[in-house]
């Protein structure tokens, strides 16, 4: 008799749990009337206003990152997220909320990243995403200022006769390896087709897997964004081999930066000017270590860091928003050097040098 009731209890529980699992995530209203008929369900705040107000009301920034991109957004052994993209998430949180740690990172795969923005799961997407025409128009995204100018390059072995001056013509008959389902695949086929050479393209599911293929000799050439090639060369080149990266001018343009849903100017301004603030601070040499209160500076820096004539309050941010960004996260150089120097990427002489040093990193004036 007992076991009969135990079975019944078990079945009842499982049914209840089915229902609970289906409904577990529905927002439950703190209903005032305790009666069962109290049909108050809280619907998510309909955003008539800007995402900026929603984020500030919520108190946390939801930031979409990759979570497994070397130096850009790495998930560390304790589950924390670090990297160049992750630091820009923190910078936006510091500007909007005053606390660089008020970020909830969401790791997104390449295929789900734009849906996540459209469904409101993330407020801003900083997931090494290339700014392209179709994404800007068709997909319905808006792009912020480019934080990293990347470009696809190729890497081969010096022992196979490749040099830094090699070009498309040297690729005849080569086995080229890359990630499956990315634009790198298309770029390299176009590149070979234009030069009229035949290549064999081999694709792998994850980047670590095709690098293994390259190291094991299954591939003659490995191709992806230049930043990743440099990182792999620094970390994985065996002592008895010489890997070379070519051509000097990348075969594609990959401007990477923050991305958000379209037609929300107020939110776009907050994200964009966070990036610009890190660049302007870098131009003046104001960094995480030496930044002072806004009133201790003159002119542009005074306005930017929250002194007299500041413009942040008109944007809906606090006056010292960008002061917090520099203090808590750092200027562009701080962020760049902290994350990208360990994988062998340096600003000097690259496209990511400041515009005064011949690079492309440039910000409009703060006035």
């Amino acid at each position, binding site marked *: *008799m*007992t076991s*009969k*009731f*135990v*079975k*019944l209890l*078990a079945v*009842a*529980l*499982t049914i*209840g*749990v*089915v*229902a*609970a*699992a*289906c*409904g*577990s*995530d*529905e*927002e*439950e209203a*703190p209903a005032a009337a305790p*009666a*069962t008929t109290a*049909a*108050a*369900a*809280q*619907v*998510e705040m309909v955003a008539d206003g800007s995402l900026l107000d929603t984020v500030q009301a919520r108190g946390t920034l939801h930031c979409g990152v990759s*979570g*497994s*991109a*070397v*130096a850009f957004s*790495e*998930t*560390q*052994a*304790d*589950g*924390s997220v*670090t990297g160049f993209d992750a630091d820009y998430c923190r910078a936006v949180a510091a500007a909007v909320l005053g606390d660089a740690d008020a970020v*909830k990172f*969401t790791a997104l*795969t390449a295929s*789900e990243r734009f849906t996540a923005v459209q*469904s409101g799961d993330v407020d801003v997407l900083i997931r090494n995403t290339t700014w392209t025409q179709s994404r800007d128009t068709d997909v319905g995204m808006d792009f912020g200022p480019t934080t990293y100018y990347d470009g696809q390059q190729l890497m081969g072995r010096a022992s196979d006769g490749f040099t830094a001056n090699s070009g498309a013509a040297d690729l005849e008959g080569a086995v080229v390896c890359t990630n499956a389902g990315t634009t790198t695949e298309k770029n390299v086929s176009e590149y070979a087709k234009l030069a009229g050479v035949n290549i064999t393209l081999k694709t792998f599911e*994850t*980047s*670590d897997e095709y*690098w293994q293929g390259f190291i094991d000799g299954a591939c003659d050439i490995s191709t992806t964004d230049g930043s990743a090639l440099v*990182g*792999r060369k620094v*970390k994985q080149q065996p002592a008895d081999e010489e890997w070379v990266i070519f051509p000097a001018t990348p075969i594609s343009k990959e401007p990477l930066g923050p991305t958000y849903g379209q037609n929300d100017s107020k939110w776009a301004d907050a994200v964009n000017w966070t990036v610009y603030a890190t660049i302007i601070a870098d131009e003046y040499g104001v960094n995480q270590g030496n930044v002072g209160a806004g009133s201790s500076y003159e002119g542009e820096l005074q306005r930017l860091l929250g002194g007299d004539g500041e413009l942040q309050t008109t944007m809906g941010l606090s006056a010292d928003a960008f002061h917090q960004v520099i203090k808590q996260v750092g200027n562009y150089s701080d962020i760049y050097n*902290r994350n990208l120097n360990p*994988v062998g990427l340096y600003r000097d002489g690259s496209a990511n040098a400041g515009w005064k040093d011949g690079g492309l990193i440039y910000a409009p004036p703060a006035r």
Partner: protein
Amino acid sequence: MNSTNSTSQDLINSDSSTELANNELPPKVAALSPTEWLKANLFSNTFNSILTVLSTAAILLIIRGLLSFIFNPLRQWSATATNMRLLMTQAYPEHQYVRVWVSLGFLLFLTGISLAFWRAGRRVQLSQVGKRLLILGAFIVLATLLAPFSNRATIIWLIVGILIVGIGLLLKPSHEDKTISSLTLLSGAFLLAILSLWVIPYGHHSYLSTRTPKILAESGTVAMTTKLPWTIMFLVAVCSYFLGSFVREKIDEAKSKALLSVTWLISPLFLLFLVLRDPDFDTRHLFSTDVPIFLFFSIVGSVLLLWLTKPDVGEKGRVISAAILFIGFATFLFQMLMIVRILTLVLAFFALAAPTFSGQKPARIRYTKVWIASMVILCWLITAINTPSTAKVPGDFFIGGFAITLMIFFFTMVLAFPLGVLLALARTSKFPIFRMISTTFIEFIRGVPLITILIFFSVMVPLFLPDGMDLTEIAAVTIAFIIFEAAYLAENVRGGLQSVTQGQHEAAEAVGMTNAQKTVFIVLPQALRVAIPPMVGQIIATFKETGLLAIIGIFDFLYIARSVIPGQTQFMGSTRENLLFVSLVYLVICFSMSKASQRVEKRVGLGER
């Protein structure tokens, strides 16, 4: 040779006394001398001899390849060691880790008690243990000679191998009356493993969380935060076993076994949502909303059920039950607290089942008590799930890695099983509408690959939900797993249902059972018994299928090993090491499940009648 030995060994079950077991044993075959054995089994003719030589060579080459891969100095095993926490729980906060250990300790405590109550374990002859040790030792010696070890390592491993061979040789000639419990053997092995944590310098891998992260790999034994909890876990398991054996003589065994079964079913939910998730209850809301709802449903439901279980209620009762079910579904059309919808549905279920449990007053009161107990557990659970967690993690969900693999597997099994049984019953039902719905559902789900269903649920379903309703990705894919596995389990159960002969149905009807009683007490128990082997196969398949979560980008065990760890600057190019570790864990778990199912089959006597 080996397999026949183990089969005859398994027949000696702890349930039957040794005398009885001896009587059941097949007649003994005279032992062959080693040369005779070799000739009979490996070199019986030219063709077999060639096959033996070739396959031995192939096996040796594979072992050699694997060993030289594993022990190659180029392997970054520190990637796996440093990221062990990430692999197991993803981002669960370190200062709250005691919750993980408490949960694990509670499960081990339950395991110990259950092992004692069900008198698990069997007697193993010492000579058999000796034989196994001999084989193990010989294998270690062989592997050591094949592996590319340094001289020092070779000598150490040779000594270990020869020691094991020696112990094996000592035990082998012992008399067949001398036996040892398999549980003693198992705990001995675990004890050795845990002692090795304190003695052998596995190295101390840790991670310093700063803006510029640092990995520390120091020589020495593993960190105190690893070896101390594991030692306590071992002690908990062993002590609870002895506690169980001590207590079981003094109390009603059937009742406590039933209680243990329910605890097993419920405790993962409580450990997950109350201990690990640590909800931050809002007392005001609790007393203004949840408690009144609970009281309302318990009281109204109790009165209703007490009335419905009266033997003379008749048709009126069914109409009312059906009306509650209708209301239950209707609540989903209106904005309403989820807890109200769920409780209405559960009440409808209890009302519909009431006639089956009708009878005298004590039975009716007991039925009502079960209702109140279900209410307590459900309300607590629903409230806990809807309360924000105090575990602050950077990700989307409070656990990940192996823990989420286990969590989704557990929910899938617990929920897909009853759903599968219902589907199977519907498919064999006399009502054409049930049959049609169920057949369509099962065939549709079985016709679509699991990965398609998973992608559909993780990407598309959130877009279809009405405003104000929100489903996290984890919940969505769990539902996807449940409906997929339920369709397959339903087919397994249907096979079992068909094996129940017509005579059983007729006999049940002859003693005056209702359709529901016939199904629950006569047909299903027999059908499920027959369905055990295919269902276990399905369960193991499900466990392995959780690896598909990696493809849709959920931070499960496989995804962390394959994509996340190789994405760390320090550990680029460590995919293969991590994948090897993951496969080892999957192998150990699937192998144990399959062994356990063999024992269950023996217990219910499948294949022997």
